[in-house]
């Protein structure tokens, strides 16, 4: 509804029910859910007040719908983060960390923002966030606003920017003012 209001689509056109104009949050989610996964390159820039310059990292994302996501950072240091179902594993040199997400409700909500969006799982997203969609199918922006105060204590807003069923940019705005932005480009056509 909001989307249509924002687009200012005349009611007569709505009545014609052209698919292009029926595009809304559900349609976005539906489209995202159809994403078959694959490889993508990412560049992530973190702006941290403590540091004079942003920290930049880059590497590869591998997404296997609906619940498996691997983030292989190549620069500045090789590191692998593997998200598989309930398990979050982090490997960095010899060090390995493993977190069961169900143990950590905040981390789960955080991870679900990413996973829920990639998988187009609206219900999962709405468990922890208020969703605000702007833009159109070709260029949309989805804001996730934490509903849980415990989550809001460290992240203020998560923003996904994309086109059709492809996410191009993810922005995290943290409660302490630090932020990070990740841009994503497909590495192979799927």
């Amino acid at each position, binding site marked *: 509804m909001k989307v249509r209001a924002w687009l200012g689509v005349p009611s007569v056109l709505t009545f014609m029910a052209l698919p292009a104009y029926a595009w809304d949050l559900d349609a976005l989610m539906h489209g995202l859910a159809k994403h078959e996964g694959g490889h993508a390159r990412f560049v*992530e820039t*973190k702006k*941290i007040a*403590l*540091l*004079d*310059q942003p*920290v*930049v*990292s880059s590497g590869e994302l591998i997404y296997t719908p609906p619940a498996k996501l691997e*983030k292989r*950072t190549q620069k*500045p*240091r090789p*590191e692998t*983060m593997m998200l598989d179902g309930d398990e979050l594993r*982090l490997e*960095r040199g010899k*060090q*390995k*960390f*493993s*977190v*069961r997400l*169900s*143990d950590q409700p905040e981390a789960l909500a955080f991870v679900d923002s990413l996973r829920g969006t990639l998988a187009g799982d609206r219900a999962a997203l709405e468990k922890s966030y208020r969703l605000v969609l702007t833009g159109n199918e070709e260029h949309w922006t989805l804001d996730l606003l934490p509903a849980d105060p415990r989550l809001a204590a*460290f992240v203020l807003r998560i923003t996904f920017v994309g086109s059709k069923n492809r996410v191009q940019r993810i922005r995290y705005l943290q409660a302490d003012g*630090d932020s990070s932005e990740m841009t994503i480009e497909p590495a192979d056509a799927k």
Partner: protein
Amino acid sequence: MKGNRAAVLVWCFGLAACLLIIWRSHFTADMSAFLPQRPSPSQQLLVEQLREGNLSRLVVIGIEGSDPAGRAVLSKALAAQLVASGLFSTVQNGDATALAKEREILFANRYLLSPMVDAERFSVAGLHGAIAESVDLLASPAGLVVKGLLTHDPTGEMMTLLGALDPGDGPASSHGVWASRDGRRALLMAQTNAAGSDTDGQQRALDRIHAEFAALAADHADARLLVAGAPAFAVASRAAIKGEVERLAIISAVGIIAVLLLVYRSATAIALGLLPVLSGALAGVAAVSLGFGSVHGLTIGFGTTLIGEAVDYSIYYFVQSREGLDADWRREFWPTVRLGVLTSLCGFASLLFSGFPGLAQLGLYSMSGLIAAAAVTRFVLPQLKPPGFRIRDTAAIGRACAPFLGSLARIRWPVLALGVGTMAVIGANHARLWNASLTDLSPVPAGLVQIDQSLRSELGTHDRGYLVVISAPERDAALAAAQHLSAHLQGLVDQGVLGGFDTPTRFLPDAASQRARQEALPDRAELAARLRQALIGLPLRVDKLTPFLDDVEKARTMPLLTSESLKGSSLGLAVDAMVLHRATGWSVLLPVRPVGDADLDTQAVRQALAGERDAAFLDLGAETHQLYAQYLDEAIGLSLAGFAAIALLLGAALRSWERFVRVLAPLVLAVLLVMAALTLAGEHLTLLHLVGLLLTVAVGSNYALFFDQGDAIGQPRTLASLIVANSTTVIGFGALATSSVPVLQAIGITVGPGAVLALLLSATLAGRRPA
């Protein structure tokens, strides 16, 4: 007659003394009966661990039912109550607020604890590298954790310490407390103040857990408590043994009294007949208490079996003696009974030499019990017998059975052939004849073992029992050696030989290591100067790192970390579990883990330790197994020696090869038949079956001697006494065979059939040949 009255006085005095000793005795039901009295050095450690060690104090607790939130509330409340009770050194339930203390200790002491801290780390290049790494880590998803610490800990020492904690192995949690992976249980661990050898103390602690939970769970109708762990095992074993002993004593007493009532038809006779039994049992317990300092529940349980044998003496006396002619009985029958008693004593004396305290207690108990019972029968009963006392004539029983028992002599050759057959059965099965496992003797109910295993695996405390042990005269020296050895072990982990290992030096390094780290820290001005250089090219300013300068300055002069500073935290608990004060000095235990579920390559570990003088590798599972195998070997040897002593005694007393063979053959055959039958029934023989076989020989020797010397077939009274004695024995041991305590069941199932066989075989083989 005066002297004989003195016998009654001595008896009364003796009984009073026994009662006094028993009243003051300490009764146990712990593992001590299964532990060696004279352990080897590596067994010593095993024994200490089982008696006093942390594992012997660890209670594992599960809460089921209710809902996850309800269980979490119960878990927290129960933990708080248990801590307040003062009966537990620690209670853990995964409550994160409880772990805050551990993080605080680690953070405050990070410059003493981190193995990365050295002069190199705090050089300009070292600082640059470490800080660059921390900045890089900010880029990672873990950056959120690091960011808060960066100004205090730019070199990332805390991350090093946390990384070593290996959080992946811990239990899952739900609603802030530990929970099983399937989410059906909340989990807790508690450590009793009472050591494993203090069953009373552990029982109090367990009772408290149940009581506190019952009070808390009033609001959670369907919540259930599961309690396991070594203390629960000790308490359950004691309860099981106590319950069984009471039940069996009642069953066998009722059965035996019923038989005696049937035979004697006289309450006086029954009362008199039980006197030797009671005297024997009291003397046995008192002797064990004096000889061993404590009496194991199993020994008492065994006491009920003694009823079966000791009651025989009074039966022989009453049934065999004719009215008023005690002198005749003393002349005709007493020598045979006496020889039977001596035979039994020979058998049990061998057990006295066992390194297995349980067996040695049994030996002492049986010997003193039998001597007391026989002496009371011989010297006291005749005095207490009222004038004109007589029991019903029992010759009819003997006469009724004589034709059948007499006819058995005709099948002596087939029976001997059967004996050869049983030897073949035993020979064919000799490889699996003996059971080499100690767990089969454990009286712990199987259900409790199952709960224990499931709680442990959920808690991730499933210990595989591989330890590297380091010994030194002083605690600090032992820690230093452990620190040194950790490097070797880490090498094995890197090579993929080990999955991992624990060392107390992670939380409590030796003083020299801590001091070396302190000395590697530059003073404030120097550190600030180095930082300015080190930060060139990094996006971080010195002025942001004031907290770091403060913390390092403080760490340079802070007091070293001691076991005191860890007290009350789970870090202290972990250290205490690994650092033991022993009679010989200090030992550090480093538990090592195989890779995944694979077996440990013990060879590789032993090789890696070969150069270390004070380090030894210990496989507790193998050690326990070996311990038991050693007991079994020893017991078999001792039993054979006992049997040889019996043979010698009989040879000396009978002075005739023919009679010697006649008396011994039924006993040997009875033993062989029972062994073969148990083997064919799929039983693996344990130590206690062996004791049962020894008892069979002890009881059976009386029968064989009476058939040999007393011409039992021709004398109805003698035959009747044997039949009555045999039926009481079968009742006593038959009751044991129904026991749920494996140790008692093993004896019962061996002696019950063994006694019947011994009687029948004595009739077949030991009787005088018809002219």
